């Protein structure tokens, strides 16, 4: 049996309407299937997503990042409980990294959300990054759209804070929450460049530990030095005990209130970046792989010093053939 073909024959428009109708009506099974479709990609996925775009914008999208060990999943579990207590429905996209060696993944974030295992008001989907380097997955924005269109009040995206994931999350989310654990050392090593720029709410989890106070103070001090980050809330929580969750809810709600009008702007910003990325991939591929006599000549001239890099690049841009923008490469797999 040959199993290496891409999955799913394209579904013609009638089927797309059908499944989107079910999705919008709140059918969880349809939501699951749509998510799979978004992850798979292809013309059927495009057809469904086009229809879904008309229905997005209602959900509050909250992004959670944090280093491993910060207690992010446990915190989200408690946050979901608070949302459910006030009658709101939730969808969670929990992203874990795909192994670059095998192409497989262990998706274990659900493990910490067992309180909601039988609650239909909480939809949890585990997503593998599938080679995407940002920390989320390539298709995550479409997955979020589909969860939004399904009528969920809150959509939570969760990912480990590595690489560029905080920035990616900030782009898809209405509110970015960065979760920190109190540090064992004296400085906040975990606070990477960029986090202060994009975090809307900073959480210091494990507030029951003695060092949490110091971490909170350090964060507040750093924020004070930034003119543009005065509104960032610092919240102390002890997720396992359930303390600080109300404060977290209040902080998130406050940000949502100020962002009410901004959804379109964020979306367009994200689209811009995705288009640039896709275009960049096409150019990268054309210059590095496709070659062609003219590109080869440029390369030789640059190597001999006849042409500077910048000049060579400019010429390459005008030479790059227009054509299909390529899908990102899948990770290499062990056979």
């Amino acid at each position, binding site marked *: 049996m040959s199993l290496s073909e891409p999955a799913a024959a394209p579904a013609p428009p009638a089927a797309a309407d059908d499944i989107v109708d079910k999705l919008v009506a709140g059918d969880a099974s349809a939501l699951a*299937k749509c998510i799979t479709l978004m992850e798979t990609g292809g013309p059927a996925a495009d057809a469904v997503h086009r229809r879904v775009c008309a229905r997005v914008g209602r959900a509050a999208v909250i992004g959670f990042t944090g280093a491993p060990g910060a207690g992010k999943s446990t915190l989200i579990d408690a946050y979901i409980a608070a949302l459910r207590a006030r009658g709101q429905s939730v969808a969670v996209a929990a992203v874990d990294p795909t*192994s670059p060696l*095998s192409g497989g993944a262990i998706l274990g974030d659900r493990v910490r959300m067992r309180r909601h295992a039988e609650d239909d008001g909480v939809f949890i989907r585990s997503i593998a990054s599938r080679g995407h380097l940002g920390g989320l997955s390539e298709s995550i924005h479409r997955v979020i759209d589909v969860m939004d269109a399904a009528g969920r009040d809150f959509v939570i995206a969760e990912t480990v804070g590595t690489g560029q994931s905080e920035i990616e999350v900030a782009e898809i989310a209405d509110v970015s929450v960065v979760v920190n654990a109190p540090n064992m050392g004296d400085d906040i090593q975990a606070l990477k460049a960029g986090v202060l720029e994009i975090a809307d709410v900073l959480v210091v989890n494990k507030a029951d530990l003695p060092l949490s106070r110091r971490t909170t103070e350090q964060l507040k001090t750093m924020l004070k030095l930034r003119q543009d980050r005065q509104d960032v809330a610092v919240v102390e929580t002890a997720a396992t005990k359930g303390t600080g969750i109300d404060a977290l809810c209040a902080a998130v709600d406050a940000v949502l209130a100020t962002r009410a009008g901004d959804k379109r702007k964020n979306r367009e910003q994200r689209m811009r970046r995705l288009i640039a990325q896709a275009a960049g991939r096409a150019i990268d591929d054309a210059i590095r792989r496709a070659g062609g006599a003219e590109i080869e000549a440029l390369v030789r001239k640059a190597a001999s010093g006849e042409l500077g890099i910048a000049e060579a690049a400019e010429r390459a841009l005008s030479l790059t053939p227009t054509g299909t923008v390529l899908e990102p490469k899948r990770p290499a797999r062990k056979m």
Partner: protein
Amino acid sequence: MTGQLSPPARVLITKIGLDGHDRGSRIVAAFLRDAGMEVIYTPPWQSIPAVVKLAMEEDVDVIGVSSLATDHLIVPKLMAALREAGFGHIGLVVGGIVPEDERPALIESGVSAIFGPGSARDHIIDHVATLAAEVRAVKDAALREIAQ
């Protein structure tokens, strides 16, 4: 080894019933990942409704139930619940200790294979991969069927 699905096979590894020993299921999860599959891993003591909900949300292809003690006795109940919810096409395998005389009942309820403690890793991987491919084919056909 069979080729790999694209997107990767999604396999749920879980335990129902009362037993809590999960060394075996963690090892199986690890080598299914190494074989290129996406493994949704849950801790033990999942209720049957929770597993059905999970299978639906995660759009899994295969469910692997790890069973020691007598937890296999309620696997037929899980199979029935899955069928009732419209997920009878999902493949299901059982790993662990199942006494000889109680295996027929499981197979009859729709369990695809029972892997005892000595099962070779490649054997498990091959079977799960093949099963996942079959389930995918059914899912794809269902998608096409909607169109007709």
